[in-house]
């Protein structure tokens, strides 16, 4: 039959065709994995189970008209617009969001399949509780009552700090804000979210360098970059749409792309220069590059003189990192680093991108500050095309961080001081004494009682220690006894075997999530676990902040699936149960237990003065979403029309009130524009002088500033001194007087008058100072290289030891005592981890999406052929990865040169297997993800950052053996 027609048959036999060639020469990751997973439980039903209750097949062709609704993707932080087609209340299709200046219609695998997230079958469908090892369905009312009673009992016996409120980077801004307010009203600071284990070291490091802890420029602004430097980040997989902007600069500006990573990532595949370095040696690498910059005097001396404090101390440290020492520590030859230094010096402005590879270390805050120092030395800050472009990982991790779903601050980074509480009590119209009465207290070292209201809570990275640590060693009255996992994947956290023990020791576990998550199955509990179904963000509405600080408004696409409820409704129900709903929601309209979202936005608009979340009223954000097409795709500025001059999404700080009409700040610290038009200078946050040196800017100021030099942050007293207080309206003056008279500063003035007047005179309300590369309040004022706790290089420990053991955030924290033990004989390989494009976070959501799950069916470990051959391991073999704290995971070996000799890589999105055991049967029926696998974090070990308690999940030790 093949001879039926001879003309026009394929140009050659199959073996010479393109696919044939590709298949013969290599086996890629997916081809390798795709074939192998067909027998996995749960997959058999997948083919039959694709789609929702009502499929588009039924809806298409029906007379129902198609409605278009806009939302924002719920995966990474790029902020891609999702355009949904809805027919008869069914989400029938997705169209490209062409008008979005951020993604221009583009999506990655996850964004292109979000319809399944909202309409899929494998959701947690009803409130359930674990009774005698079985999941039993219950009503919402019963669930809230039962859980509430148990919590109130714990509160009574052990104090409010024994309940832990673990929130989420998936909350909308309004939900994040309410959640933070909620655990304040409960009376604890024991609340936190993913930001702790993702960019906490960035936020701390960056905010302590120049004022704000956020991405300084935007994805779009990379169009202006002349060079792109990416370290510890794999945006091609973690933020795929950002690559559209990176590749534009690469192609059209001929901008060299430099990727520094221990692993040859998919991003590295598109780099002009790939620098492979040893995991955990970031500071050494950066100093090693800067050695060449200083050696050749390529630094921007004028920029440093005007706007940087402490650079000479950095220079002194960098001097130690000559090419020989840098190569000894990082493994990178000096010649390559000289080339990199030269590229960055010759192609300014260059942008600097980093992600988890830099942050998740015991000295993560040192890494992030070294990156800042690098950009400051080259004068790449505060300019289009430059900046510290910190790509954040979850759809609203920026927003949830800004609203401080954290254990160490109130919303807007106000901290936990008495003044901070007073400010928010004022915003909430709350009686400060009533709030104080909600909190417990402990005896300080001086024997005096101190309220836990002002003490940092336990961070999420350490909740297991809050349960397991001896009560006497924790600075709170009792251990944690109840955990609430509100949109959190436990497998995103290290030390999972200990976590299992901690879960079993708790009195109560509550999971509030669209999916059961690994929390439902990890422990051997048979009782006392509740699962409450939350909606996804596609079944509710509200604002969300992208990595570039732009706010976007999500419309509700469909009504909540099954019995699920939006987070803000669940928060209200608990507040009602605990008896403080009327206080907490006094300024917010509530209908059928659902708080009116726009009222929440307006409430936080009234309090978030520090970082300018005050100008983005719901109406303004919605207008931007409705008119996305008017914004320039590079500057993000609206051209013409009613929004003329405004920046897309009013990137914070959007100063003053909404009425003031500030356009948002597209690039932080950019002095080339007036503050009123989005310009800025470095923030005066660290005082006016240090050790006799001036910390204020010298001769540098935003265009149009009436003060032609540095100045401290604005207060009422300062306005008076400048003679500008006459510009205040009577109402503003009265409001300022009411707060603290002349001492009222720009952060606590609820009228926004001080900000308005300062900006009117061309000044930044937060002052005009130098950035500091020396953070004298941190353990290492100048960033130092320190060997990881589990280092493979024992020869470097003496020269670059870690910290001494210490107490941080209420808990004893180990450094030296762990590093002192040599594990390299039994565990000779370095273990690192990272993301895959198909999955996100703990992966419960994405592994439950058949379109994604099909693409990545097996958990694996990447190892170099050199190591594999040495252990007689072949591609596709099942292996045990064993780590020094006694954990082991059973995964498939992928033998590849992607990793260096002696390095193994694990993707971290898998869950549902534990040390070789399949836990599928423990999920509630029909709610198990299609794909399960060992969690990388079962294997990952102890280690926490010295400032933020970020977990170390990028550098440990392991050995790999055939099963």
């Amino acid at each position: 039959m093949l001879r039926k027609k001879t003309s026009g048959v394929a140009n050659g036999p199959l073996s010479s065709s393109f696919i044939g060639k590709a298949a013969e020469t290599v086996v890629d990751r997916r081809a390798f994995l795709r074939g192998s997973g067909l027998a996995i439980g749960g997959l058999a039903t997948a083919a039959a189970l694709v789609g929702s209750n009502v499929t588009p097949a039924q809806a298409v062709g029906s007379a129902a008209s198609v409605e278009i609704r806009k939302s924002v993707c719920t995966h990474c932080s790029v902020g891609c617009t999702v355009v949904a087609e809805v027919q008869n209340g069914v989400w029938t299709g997705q169209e490209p969001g062409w008008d979005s200046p951020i993604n221009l219609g583009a999506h990655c695998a996850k964004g292109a399949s979000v319809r399944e997230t909202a309409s899929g079958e494998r959701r947690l469908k009803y409130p359930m509780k674990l009774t005698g090892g079985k999941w039993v369905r219950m009503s919402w009312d019963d669930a809230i009552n039962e859980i509430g009673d148990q919590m109130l009992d714990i509160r009574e016996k052990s104090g409010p700090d024994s309940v832990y409120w673990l929130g989420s980077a998936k909350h909308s801004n309004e939900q994040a804000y309410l959640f933070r307010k909620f655990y304040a009203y409960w009376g604890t600071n024991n609340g936190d979210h993913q930001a702790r284990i993702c960019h906490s070291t960035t936020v701390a490091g960056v905010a302590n360098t120049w004022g704000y802890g956020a991405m300084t420029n935007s994805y779009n602004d990379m169009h202006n970059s002349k060079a792109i430097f990416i370290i510890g980040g794999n945006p091609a997989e973690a933020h795929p749409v950002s690559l559209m902007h990176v590749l534009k600069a690469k192609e059209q500006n001929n901008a060299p792309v430099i990727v520094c990573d221990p692993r040859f990532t998919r991003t590295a595949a598109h780099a002009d220069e790939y620098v492979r370095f040893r995991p955990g040696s970031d500071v050494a690498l950066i100093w090693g590059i800067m050695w060449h910059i200083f050696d050749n005097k390529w630094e921007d001396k004028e920029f440093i003189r005007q706007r940087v404090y402490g650079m000479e101390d950095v220079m002194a440290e960098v001097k130690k990192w000559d090419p020989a020492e840098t190569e000894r520590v990082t493994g990178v030859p000096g010649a390559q680093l000289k080339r990199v230094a030269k590229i960055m010096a010759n192609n300014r402005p260059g942008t600097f991108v980093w992600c988890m590879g830099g942050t998740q270390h015991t000295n993560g805050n040192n890494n992030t500050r070294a990156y800042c120092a690098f950009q400051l030395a080259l004068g790449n800050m505060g300019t289009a095309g430059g900046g510290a472009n910190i790509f954040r990982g979850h759809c609203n991790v920026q927003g949830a961080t800004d609203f401080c779903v954290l254990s160490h601050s109130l919303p807007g980074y106000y901290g936990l001081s008495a003044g901070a509480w007073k400010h928010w009590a004022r915003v909430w119209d709350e009686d400060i004494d009533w709030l104080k009465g909600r909190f417990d207290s402990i005896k300080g070292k001086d024997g005096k009682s101190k309220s836990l209201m002002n003490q940092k809570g336990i961070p999420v990275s350490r909740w297991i220690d809050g349960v397991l640590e001896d009560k006497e060693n924790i600075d709170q009255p009792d251990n944690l006894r109840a955990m609430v996992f509100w949109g959190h994947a436990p497998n995103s956290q290290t030390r999972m075997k200990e976590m299992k023990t901690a879960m079993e020791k708790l009195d109560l576990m509550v999971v509030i999530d669209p999916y059961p998550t690994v929390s439902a199955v990890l422990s051997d509990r048979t009782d006392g676990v509740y699962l409450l179904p939350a909606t996804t963000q596609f079944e509710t509405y509200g604002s969300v902040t992208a990595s570039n600080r732009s706010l976007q408004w999500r419309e509700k696409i469909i009504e909540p699936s099954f019995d699920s409820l939006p987070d803000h409704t669940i928060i209200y129900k608990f507040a009602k149960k605990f008896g403080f709903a009327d206080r907490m929601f006094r300024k917010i309209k509530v209908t059928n237990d659902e708080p009116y979202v726009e009222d929440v936005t307006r409430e936080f608009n009234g309090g978030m003065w520090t970082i300018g979340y005050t100008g983005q009223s719901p109406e303004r954000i919605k207008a931007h979403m409705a008119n996305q097409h008017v914004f320039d795709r590079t500057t993000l500025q609206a051209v013409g029309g009613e929004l003329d001059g405004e920046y897309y999404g009013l990137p914070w700080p959007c100063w003053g009130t909404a009425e003031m009409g500030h356009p948002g700040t597209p690039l932080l610290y950019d002095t080339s524009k007036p503050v009123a038009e989005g310009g800025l200078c470095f923030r005066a946050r660290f005082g006016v002088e240090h050790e006799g040196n001036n910390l204020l800017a010298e001769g540098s100021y935003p265009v149009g500033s009436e003060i032609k030099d540095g100045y401290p942050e604005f207060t009422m007293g300062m306005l008076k001194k400048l003679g500008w207080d006459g510009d205040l309206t009577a109402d503003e003056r009265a409001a300022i007087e009411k707060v603290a008279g002349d001492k009222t500063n720009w952060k606590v003035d609820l009228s926004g008058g001080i900000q308005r007047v300062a900006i009117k005179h061309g000044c930044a309300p937060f002052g005009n100072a130098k950035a500091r590369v020396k953070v004298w309040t941190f353990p290492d004022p100048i960033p130092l290289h320190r060997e990881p706790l589990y280092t493979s290089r024992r020869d470097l420990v003496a020269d670059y030891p870690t910290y001494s053991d210490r107490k941080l955030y209420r808990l004893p924290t180990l450094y030296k005592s762990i590093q002192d033990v040599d594990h390299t004989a039994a565990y000779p390989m370095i273990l690192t981890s990272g993301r895959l494009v198909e999955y996100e976070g703990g992966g419960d959501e994405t592994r439950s999406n058949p379109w994604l799950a099909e693409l990545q069916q097996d958990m694996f470990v990447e190892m170099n052929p050199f190591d594999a051959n040495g252990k007689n391991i072949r591609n596709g073999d099942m292996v045990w990865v064993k780590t020094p704290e006694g954990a082991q995971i059973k995964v498939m070996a992928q033998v590849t040169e992607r990793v260096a000799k002696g390095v193994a890589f694990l993707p971290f999105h898998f869950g549902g297997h534990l040390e070789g055991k399949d836990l599928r049967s423990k999920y509630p029926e029909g709610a198990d993800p299609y794909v399960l696998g060992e969690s990388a974090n079962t294997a990952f070990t102890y280690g926490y950052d010295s400032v933020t308690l970020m977990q170390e999940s990028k550098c440990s030790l392991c050995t790999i053996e055939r099963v």
Partner: protein
Amino acid sequence: MARMKFLCDAERCIECNACVTACKNEHEVPWGVNRRRVVTIQDGKPGERSISVACMHCSDAPCTAVCPVDCFYQTEQGVVLHSKDLCIGCGYCFYACPFGAPQYPQAGNYGSRGKMDKCTFCAGGPEEDMSSLEFQKYGRNRLAEGKLPICAEMCSTKALLAGDGDQVSNIFRERIVARGFGSGAWGWGTAYSIKG
């Protein structure tokens, strides 16, 4: 007259698989059937490149030539489609196709969409345009809706282009000029008997 073509720019493709899931989402393609996939060469090594592959809707399509029941036809815009009513699922087209495009369900028929399945360039098939029957058998007909294939329209880096061949090659040519070097539009020689 428009001639519809796909173009995958290997310098841009980052193997994010948006094209794959967008296709699944748009047409409700079941597990195990992949109308489009991404192939990576030199995986994990310098020179690693990825290409998104589906039916290229060849000018002189080999599948059409070998089909024993002549179930293929080509639209005026060059889109190669087939009738699932005629198809007997023999698999010859798979052996003939230089791109490995034809797909077959793993076991037996699934739903009403048995037999061979492949990329339709989002142009549905020989049923009434935009009807429910067309959707069930062949997937959505975006061309009839005035839209281009979803895989290209959602591509994260705009590596995958689809549409009128002249427009698409103009876009690509501009990129090559900006880059200062050309790597060729992957598969164009084979599919459209032109180089690059």
